[in-house]
């Protein structure tokens, strides 16, 4: 469903993505792991076309995304930090985004569960960080997109909302969607992911971890922590 080949991105000499090759299938939940600054957000933003890599290609459903924008119809994206126009009301933001997507049917289950209606009349700059995250999560699922990309979705959410979101992710997978999620919470990887990708300094170190680690006797969490430690000192 998404194919990434030889992707490179440099920020003033710093290699944020270093020859990244990856493949994502429909119907799977992939966790993207790695220490801070390992390039996870940069990778996801490249898929969205927010960050433009120097070289390499990204294909979504077989089509190169270079100079394309329509493919974003297929993607629901929850950024690491939600950004909406500060002086607009939640209601207005929703109206604009619905207007852009121009879809008649909405998956508004999350709108109810995350209590978005309660903040309709509030301006974005009057929302708490967690409220913004809730709005952002609800918008990500609103259009029933085939590809769901979540950058640290549960960071900053209260436990009830976080649990609800995790349940929603598992439910969407059964519809055959591709879900890519970054997180620093190891238990989430265990709960949600079919496989994980481990990145370090812009490079993909492990591409299809999980089954191997799950059956190791010292447990999943320990194994992942070991993985992080291993690269911390390299």
């Amino acid at each position: 469903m998404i194919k990434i080949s030889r992707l490179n991105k440099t920020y003033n000499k710093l290699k944020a993505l270093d020859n990244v090759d990856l493949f994502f299938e429909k119907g799977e939940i992939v966790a993207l792991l790695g220490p801070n600054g390992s390039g996870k957000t940069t990778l996801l933003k490249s898929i969205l076309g927010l960050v433009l890599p120097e070289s390499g290609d990204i294909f979504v459903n077989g089509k190169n995304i270079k100079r394309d924008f329509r493919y974003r119809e297929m993607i629901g994206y929850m950024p690491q930090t939600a950004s909406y126009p500060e002086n607009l009301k939640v209601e207005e933001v929703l109206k604009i985004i619905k207007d852009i997507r121009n879809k008649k049917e909405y998956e508004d289950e999350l709108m109810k569960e995350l209590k978005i209606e309660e903040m309709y009349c509030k301006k974005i700059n009057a929302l708490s960080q967690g409220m913004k995250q809730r709005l952002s999560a609800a918008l990500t699922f609103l259009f029933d997109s085939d590809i769901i990309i979540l950058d640290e979705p549960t960071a900053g959410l209260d436990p009830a909302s976080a649990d609800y979101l995790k349940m929603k992710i598992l439910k969407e997978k059964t519809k055959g969607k591709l879900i890519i999620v970054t997180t620093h919470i190891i238990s989430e990887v265990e709960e949600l992911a079919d496989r994980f990708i481990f990145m370090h300094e812009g490079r993909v170190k492990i591409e299809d971890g999980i089954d191997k680690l799950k059956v190791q006797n010292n447990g999943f969490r320990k194994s992942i922590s070991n993985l992080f430690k291993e690269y911390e000192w390299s």
Partner: protein
Amino acid sequence: MNGHSILKYVFFDIIRNKWLVIYTAVLFALCSGIIYLSRDETKSIASILNIVLIIVPLVSIIFGSMHFYNSKEFIQMLLTQPVKRSAIFKAEYTGIAISLSFGFIIGAVTPLLFTGISKAIFLLLFAGIFLSLIFSAIAFYFSISIDEKVKGIGILLFLWLFFSVLFDGIILLFYLMFSDYPLEKFTIFFTLLNPVDISRIMIILNLDLSALLGYTGATFLKFFGSASGLIITIVSLCLWVIIPVFLANKKFKRKNF
């Protein structure tokens, strides 16, 4: 979504900005004041011209860059949706350019209409709109290129100072240093490198105020007063819009958000 609906939201945002209203009101008050105080029409046009040449570029630069920096969230939100980058750029620039031009027309041109319709008003309208388009395009180029707001606005203010004041100083210095040589042709060429000077000379020469230009006035009059001179003036003003808009759009298309 097509470009029109983005433009709608950009306008919606700009119209709610109180600074646009303040700009229009201040311009209106200044221009009406000048007209009221000096009963001589040519003199009041000359004073209004001087104000327009200073204020319009300054406000276009500040308003344009502030708008871009403040719209970053809106732009980021749009970019995660199926919207073309150049459609966003077009909507943002058109929104700013039209709003500033309208502010200028209402603020500076309508008071003049009470004195009757003349060629001078038409020229002032022409110059003010061009300056709004040019300096908001320059503002966009630098705000897109420079992420730090303070640095971006700082550079833009310097550019404004350069075009409004320093440029003429440099030319004068150049003139004094090489006063033994016939430099009129060079001066004409240099003038075309500064949109503020182009506008000023275009109006002054067409208003018979050319005595103000001193001893180069004759050469200037010969050039800018002629038909080919007028065409070159218009072409260079157009280039002063097209080139910054083109470069800003190119920067925008390649920007990382």
